[in-house]
């Protein structure tokens, strides 16, 4: 049996800096390699839908014809399964947690649509007579 076992530790911490970080007054300590916000690069994406098929929570939507990629931030669990599956490395997980999702709207990215083909030249009018 011993008394005042805690006293030594209490005294040490009474004169030490707090172990906690005074967020938001001090910046968040970012740990490299942390899985955070999913980022999308529309320039390299080929809209193959692999990420949509792999996503365990169904957070991703892809429309190949309209070249649209959408994510429901409230559903995304930052597991990185889509990042692993993406054949073009268009997806990545950043260490940032991003801004809070407050609506159920999907975040939609519109890829560049190919320029519409020029209509075929009208046939030369057949001269009368």
């Amino acid at each position: 049996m011993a008394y005042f076992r805690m006293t030594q530790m209490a005294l040490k911490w009474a004169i030490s800096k707090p172990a906690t970080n005074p967020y938001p007054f001090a910046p968040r300590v970012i740990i490299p390699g942390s899985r955070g916000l999913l980022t999308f690069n529309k320039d390299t994406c080929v809209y193959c839908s692999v990420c949509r098929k792999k996503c365990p929570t169904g957070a991703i939507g892809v429309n190949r014809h309209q070249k649209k990629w959408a994510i429901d931030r409230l559903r995304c669990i930052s597991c990185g399964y889509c990042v692993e599956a993406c054949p073009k490395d268009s997806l990545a997980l950043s260490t940032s947690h991003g801004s809070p999702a407050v609506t159920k709207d999907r975040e939609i990215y519109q890829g560049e649509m190919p320029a519409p083909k020029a209509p075929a030249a009208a046939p030369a009018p057949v001269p009368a007579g």
Partner: protein
Amino acid sequence: MARTVIPFGPQHPVLPEPIMLDLVVEDEKVVEAIPKIGFVHRGLEKLVEKKDFHEFVFVAERVCGICSFIHGQTYCQAVEQIMGVAVPPRAHYLRTIWGELSRLHSHLLWLGLLADGFGFESLFMHSWRVREKVLNIIEATTGGRVIFGTCKVGGVRRDIDTAAMQSLLAQLAVIEKDMREIVDVFLEDNSVKRRLCGVGVLAKDDAYQLGCVGPMARASGLTQDMRQLGYAAFGELTFQPITRPEGDSFARCAVRCGELFQSVDLIRQAAARLPTGEIEVKVTGNPNGEFAARTEQPRGEVVYYVKANGTKNLQRFRVRTPTFANIPALVKLLPGCDLADVPILVLTIDPCISCTER
């Protein structure tokens, strides 16, 4: 003496998760305890019919927020056994390291909750201060603080390179020093001993007959630790289960304190022997067959039964969690105790209700 029924939970200050006990009391003595569970049932077992067996690792990890990695690992072990997948040795060692880090943070969390349960607020905060350092290691090596997300069927998703391993071991040395200070208070301080010694004594025979698992069984003198089965890399590491003969609340606390340092030792052994090579193998085809995998979680033995029928979705998935196995012992401990001891006794089984109800 007239009997009164006092509902304990499902919402109670000492309970992080909802479990209900109807306590039948005579004066201040409990004469009977009737448990009621099912407040956080989420139907995760049924989800095997909707998620394919690769995706289901993410669901298995979410069975519990504290021992998440070991849930994912046990599920993967079961599927790998059915499919005959040979996991690379490096993946086995990495799984062992993350499993032990998971045990470290779980036990530190529990020690904090116990200190909070008996009113030692500063000790509670110091336990969680140290746990935060463990979580930082986990975040740096896996990317997640609580849900690791690194285990997959066929291996692991991330590797720990040499520099990261050196950093991990350096941080672990600091954590070990901090833990010694805290554990010294838990095991030597008079006020802690007076609150825990002799409270809720569970005899060895009772622990055996009631099917206790994990630290609850080891604190009653049963030498039972699923890590001795040698899954992952445990077969190549040296350790002995930590047991205590007393069977009281203090013994349960002491076993968990001892396991903190055992985990540190196992991580060091695994880091020293970490083989080089691949961290995953490609898994093709669908599983067909059934298997029951057993592993040692921070709270005790978990059993995963997986049955597959050759399609991408499993046919049946069943989990027997350690808290569920320890509830009969809790019901045995409560009659005869003081009403004021109930929070301590409930805490000493380390109740994880989200696991239990899935």
